């Protein structure tokens, strides 16, 4: 006889509103990040895809090096490199269909280029001649977004709007480990889950937010564990394994496309270079850590897999290198030309039509430019 029965107490029913709508178990990420390269899963991977990924990674690495070099030559104001993160950048771009949308963070010029945006237009922001160099509608790539995590709700809204219109569109939004701490990350994921919007959130956990290591950013078991709190699946993947990142993202994109709603993917990777060319990483981390990660390099991982499987020979490797050099040379040459700027553009796109007030200021600038041209023409100030 239990205590309850002994004392004949009543048994209240559970609170009426208590019906968990979602089973949490399938939303939780696996304990280990998913891997393809060097595992059984590799055998199932599409060889063509792997070769394509390889070629893009090699190009990406070269692109990062070239862009960094351009900062030294004063051709870029600043460059946040994705060396070591190419697998995420490239997979994010390749996994999308033409009609889909990519929402990059400020770091993701490589993903933008891999999606098809002209490399010079992708670098416009960082060169400093305008804020966005490309038409977002041409390749369905949102502007590179400087304030962290603030583009995530845009991705949700766009995906939601597309779904309301009945269009087959998925949005993939990229954010860093640091960006997950922002309120906008939270609000975006919550809206996405409530609306069942076709969005995929890709967190590149590269270990640092500038100088701040992950341990000061979060105490969570993983960033992917945040997903369950929104009621969406969280997936954890080795971010240096291009095949794994591609597969996990492809699953998530398919899931979204089929009406299954959003997914949060955490890709574990590492920012091998400093935060930007202007940063001094020795202030906050040691070489040893960087070296460990160099040994887990995304290009090497894929190269070894392809070589081991006899899918890549020296000639193919050389061809990829050549392609990358061609890209870099073209970029170098084009970036060495001074962009043609019109100061009057300051006013052109603030509103559909400049306000009377802006028109006055426009005239003021015009007069200033004329005076400048005149004084340059005659004497030097």
């Amino acid at each position, binding site marked *: 006889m239990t205590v309850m029965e002994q004392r004949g107490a009543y048994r209240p029913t559970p609170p009426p509103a208590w019906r968990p709508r979602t089973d949490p178990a399938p939303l939780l990420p696996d304990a280990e990040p998913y891997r393809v390269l060097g595992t059984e899963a590799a055998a199932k991977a599409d060889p063509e895809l792997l070769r394509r990924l390889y070629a893009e990674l090699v190009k990406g690495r070269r692109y990062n090096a070239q862009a960094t070099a351009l900062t030294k030559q004063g051709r870029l104001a600043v460059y946040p490199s994705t060396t070591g993160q190419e697998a995420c950048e490239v997979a994010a771009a390749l996994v999308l269909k033409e009609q889909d949308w990519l929402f990059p963070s400020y770091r993701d010029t490589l993903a933008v280029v891999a999606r098809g945006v002209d490399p010079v237009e992708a670098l416009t922001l960082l060169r400093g001649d*305008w*804020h*966005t160099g490309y*038409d*977002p*509608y041409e390749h369905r790539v*949102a*502007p590179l977004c400087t*304030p962290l995590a*603030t583009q*995530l*709700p*845009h*991705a*949700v*809204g*766009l*995906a*939601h*709007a*597309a779904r*309301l*219109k009945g269009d087959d569109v998925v*949005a993939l939004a990229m954010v860093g480990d640091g960006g997950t701490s922002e*309120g*906008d990350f*939270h*609000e*975006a994921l*919550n*809206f996405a889950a*409530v609306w069942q919007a076709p969005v995929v959130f890709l967190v590149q956990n590269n270990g640092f937010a500038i100088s701040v290591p992950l341990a000061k950013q979060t105490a969570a078991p993983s960033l992917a564990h945040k997903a369950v709190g929104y009621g969406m699946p969280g997936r954890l993947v080795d971010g240096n394994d291009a095949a794994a990142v591609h597969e996990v993202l492809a699953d998530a994109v398919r899931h979204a496309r089929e009406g299954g709603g959003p997914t949060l993917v955490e890709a574990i990777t590492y920012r091998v270079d400093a935060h930007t060319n202007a940063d001094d990483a020795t202030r906050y981390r040691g070489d040893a850590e960087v070296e460990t990660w160099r040994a887990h390099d995304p290009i090497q991982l894929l190269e070894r897999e392809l070589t081991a499987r006899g899918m890549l020979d020296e000639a193919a490797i050389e061809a990829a290198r050549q392609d990358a050099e061609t890209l870099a040379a073209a970029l170098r040459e084009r970036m060495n030309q001074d962009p043609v700027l019109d100061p009057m*553009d300051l006013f*052109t*796109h*603030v*509103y*559909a039509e400049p*306000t*009377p*007030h802006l028109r006055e200021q426009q005239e003021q600038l015009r007069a200033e430019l004329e005076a400048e041209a005149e004084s340059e023409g005659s004497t030097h100030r």
Partner: protein
Amino acid sequence: MTTVAVKPATMAQALTRALRDAMAADPAVHVMGEDVGTLGGVFRVTDGLAKEFGEDRCTDTPLAEAGILGTAVGMAMYGLRPVVEMQFDAFAYPAFEQLISHVSRMRNRTRGSMPLPITIRVPYGGGIGGVEHHSDSSEAYYMATPGLHVVTPATVADAYGLLRAAIASDDPVVFLEPKRLYWSKDSWNPEEPTPVEPIGRAVVRRSGRSATLITYGPSVPVCMEAAEAARAEGWDLEVVDLRSLVPFDDETVCASVRRTGRAVVVHESGSFGGPGGEIAARVTERCFHHLEAPVLRVAGFDVPYPPPMLERHHLPGVDRILDAVGRLQWEAES
């Protein structure tokens, strides 16, 4: 000729009608915010819209203002025309990051290829006995943010016309709704077509020759009352209702001030760093030699908005306006 007696509509009803007509006219128009759906909004401005157009067109969002405005940005990117409701003025603050960093700049950022036709409806101002955070006037923040239009109606007809214009605009518009005028009525007839007001034109609500009261939104009726009361003091005041703070209608305002030679700017918002400073400065820049006295400002005090029992001491009323008019150096006249 027969005149049909028109059942007067409130400003809230005119706003509802504007939303409904805009939604009927353009399937791209979507209303979203906290409690805008089933409840019809805490001020009932969205009443009936979810029923008529479905919850996908008039959507109760999760409770997160940055998320509301941020997702509206994405919806606008995809070609929709979101009309966002912020439940109260002070609850728009969490959305400032989205407003300043994105809403106001996206068109410029993308060289015009990505305009954001978003209307942000913000019930603002006091005089309704609201507890803390329910009576703010934050138009100064919006005015200081290039890329936004800032519009505010003072009459029932303007509420309809300006909201239609805001929704039709290809630029983001912060649409400030004077809370205490929600239940005001005038002779607007919802059954007759109302002209859609162009954004950016001020209007002279009352002509006068002695001095100009430059005002907007909730302070317009107060200024009209002050102008009436001023007659007893021998002053014939002109009242200009700005209707839009951005764009600013220098032409109408300056024409009036040049005529009267004296001006007082009246608003509920605090004066320090508030709209009145801008208005006084630009009127002075343009009309200096027509001015008999400095442009004065009558405003709320520069304090956090007071609790309900003290708000009447804070809000600019007829007496404070007349005091200011009295300080317009009339001695110089005689």
